[in-house]
């Protein structure tokens, strides 16, 4: 007898009641008890929608029109409410803020158990067990909105695990986590999988998922296009479905390895020496001309807020045409640094010069002409009815609107087809492109991108890579704020490594990564390409 926890029988789904495009189109899946599955595909391929059919949120919460049948542990979802199904399948959503609605972590975990109507003693027992398993016992009395992003993700998972589901479904859990916290969540997921709980993880970051899972399901335009063990699936043309292959898999393919290596260790055990490896190192950037003008200079800037030293003595220079990556874990002070540079925060010590001019006396609106920033969440800025207006509104407010430049920008970011659409109706990647164009609309001498790759698919990363090289060739100075080291290694001339509000290293990427001590201090790991190709990195 098969122990399917989930069976979908030719399901189609659209969010509209009548008409509308099928977001899921003829999906047949059988998920056995205890499987660890990666669900992947480009943005808009239907991953999140499919996840929501597994616990009855579709159709009960979203309405729309669902054809075919989903059964969860033998229960047909159309006939059972979410309240009946939540014991079987637990959902961890992408945004931790919206799923932590209690005042203490303890209450957060107890919430599902209270829903189950368990007696008090049983709730206490499960609480103790789960908080030990997830290793959050020291957080129990904290407010879940006042802990770090990584801890929030762990608490969200604990709150679901406590209910004791047979399967736990996670929607892009790694999207906003830095490498250290990804590592913590990964180990937790492996642990609960070993205890027999099934795991479905929907994620773009293959490097962090394929080594862990047993099965990989690729969605494309609402259909399952590939399904099987990762090493097999990755030998197919998955790039055309918007996935970005891990470096080790690309190397394995070129070497013609039968079993594709899913991480660095697997690849290294397959090759005898570095010489045998195909050269997949990032293409070196053209060096800057010596006479390149310095557009930004910060001298030992510090920032104190409510008596706490948030940032301490950070110095940097940025030249025309240069890309400087500010890298570090979440909470290292990267975004604070950005806000100090454009005057949103005022430096408590040190000085900032924009093209030689001291910025201490300049207002944010004056600095806005020098520094264009695309913050991580574009939804914070959209308020116009069309993409066109959204791009130009800043330039108009600054009285430096230039029609020809805006046309160039729309071409560069391939926004022509979107100009008349509402910015809110766009996909995540499209929104980011609009925000980039808006940040450049006033022709600032510096463009700053805050975590541009977070939660984005392979299509977007490739496009962003193209934008970056185009901007470099135009002599645009770029500040890249990120914890995505692979991307920063490809596109930045220099790194500024931050840890706990301090600058701990500065220099070309390879030089920074070569210093094991500072990397460990900053909670980061060298990139795969560094580990593979730098002789010093080989153990």
């Amino acid at each position, binding site marked *: 007898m098969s122990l399917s926890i989930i069976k979908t029988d030719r399901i189609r789904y659209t969010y509209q009641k009548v008409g509308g495009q099928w977001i899921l189109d003829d999906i047949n899946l059988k998920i056995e008890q205890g499987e660890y599955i990666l669900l992947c595909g480009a943005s808009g391929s239907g991953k999140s929608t499919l996840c929501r059919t597994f*616990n009855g*949120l579709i159709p*009960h*919460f979203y309405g729309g029109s669902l054809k075919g049948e989903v059964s969860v542990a033998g229960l047909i979802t159309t006939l059972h409410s*979410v*309240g009946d199904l939540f*014991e079987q399948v637990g959902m961890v*959503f992408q945004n931790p*803020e*919206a*799923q932590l*609605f*209690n*005042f*203490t972590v*303890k*209450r957060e975990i*107890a*919430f*599902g*158990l*209270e*829903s*189950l*109507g*368990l*007696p*008090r003693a049983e*709730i206490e027992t499960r*609480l103790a067990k789960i908080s030990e398993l997830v290793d959050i016992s020291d957080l129990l009395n904290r407010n879940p*909105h006042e802990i770090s992003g990584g801890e929030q993700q762990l608490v969200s998972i604990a*709150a*679901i695990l406590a*209910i004791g589901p047979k399967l736990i479904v996670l929607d892009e859990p790694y999207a906003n986590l830095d490498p250290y916290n990804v590592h913590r969540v990964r180990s937790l997921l492996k642990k609960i999988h070993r205890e027999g709980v099934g795991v479905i993880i929907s994620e773009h970051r293959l490097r962090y998922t394929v080594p862990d899972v047993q099965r990989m399901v690729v969605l494309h335009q609402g259909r399952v296009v590939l399904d099987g063990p990762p090493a097999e699936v990755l030998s197919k043309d998955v790039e055309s479905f918007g996935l970005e292959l891990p470096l080790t898999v690309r190397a394995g393919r070129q070497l013609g390895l039968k079993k594709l290596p899913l991480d660095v260790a697997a690849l290294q055990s397959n090759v005898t020496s570095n010489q045998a490896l195909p050269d997949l190192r990032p293409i070196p950037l053209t060096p800057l001309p010596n006479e390149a003008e310095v557009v930004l200079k910060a001298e030992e800037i510090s920032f104190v807020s409510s008596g706490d030293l948030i940032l301490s003595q950070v110095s940097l220079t940025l030249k025309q045409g240069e890309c400087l990556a500010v890298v570090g874990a979440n909470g290292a002070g990267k975004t604070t640094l950005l806000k100090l540079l*454009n005057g*949103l925060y005022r430096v408590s010590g040190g000085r900032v010069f924009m093209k030689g001019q001291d910025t201490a006396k300049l207002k*944010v*609106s004056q600095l*806005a*002409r020098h*520094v*264009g*920033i695309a*913050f991580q*969440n574009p*939804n*914070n*800025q*959209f*308020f116009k009815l069309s993409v066109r207006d959204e791009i130009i*509104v*800043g*330039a108009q*407010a*600054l009285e430096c609107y230039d029609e020809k430049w805006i046309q160039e920008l729309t071409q560069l970011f391939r926004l022509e087809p979107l100009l008349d659409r509402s910015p*809110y109706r766009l996909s995540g990647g499209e929104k980011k492109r609009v925000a980039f164009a*808006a*940040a450049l*609309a*006033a022709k600032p001498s510096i463009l700053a991108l805050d975590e541009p790759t977070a939660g984005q698919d392979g299509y977007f990363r490739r496009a962003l890579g193209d934008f970056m090289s185009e901007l470099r060739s135009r002599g645009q100075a770029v500040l890249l704020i990120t914890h995505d080291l692979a991307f920063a290694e490809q596109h930045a001339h220099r790194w500024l490594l931050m840890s706990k509000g301090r600058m701990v290293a500065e220099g070309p990427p390879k030089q920074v990564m070569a210093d094991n001590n500072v990397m460990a201090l900053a909670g980061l790991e060298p990139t795969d390409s560094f580990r593979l190709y730098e002789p010093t990195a080989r153990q």
Partner: protein
Amino acid sequence: MFDPRTKLILSIFYVILVVISNRFSSLVVEWGVLVSLIVYTSNGKAYLRWLRLVVPMSLFFGAVTWWSINGEAGAVAALKLLAMTTVFFVFFSTTLPEDLGNALVKSGMPYAAAFVLSTSMQFVPVISRKAKNVLDAQRTRGIPVEPGWSALRHYPAFLVPLLIQAFQLAEELAESMESRGFGRPGRTYLKDYRLGAQDWLVLGVGFLILTALCVWQRL
């Protein structure tokens, strides 16, 4: 310690007492009692932050009263507002809103209503953080949304992103609550809410003191 309902009722008693007090000196004493309570529960630092918000409000209220009646009435009005808001501060700094909510459910309030009450308090800081992010994003691109007259002309730049995200947050919250069995019949509670002997005792004593003070105030 005490049941949240006891604390709520005592707070209401205290507010009544403050409202009927019309002497500056008795208001000073009433406020002083609250302050010593705050110091005793070591919430002094948080109270100072709260004062930064409330003192200007009280002074403004006092000034208006001064202007329309007289100086003494103004001082009394300002202190009254300060003492009243301090009662709420003491209540909320010693009571988790969800404890209050759950206890009220025990007394017959519908669960959904109590939940809305406590959860909306949890999301006040979230929304204000979002508001700050929106302000930052707009100011960064030169839209003057700084507090002030010019902001009025640009209010859509602030309100539209904030409202849309607040609705989105509400929807995500609803979805996640649903997925954790919100509204399923037969809910139990981690904590037991019971009005014990000490609650009744404190309530009785509180009531007596209040009555005594009311009479004394009227003499």
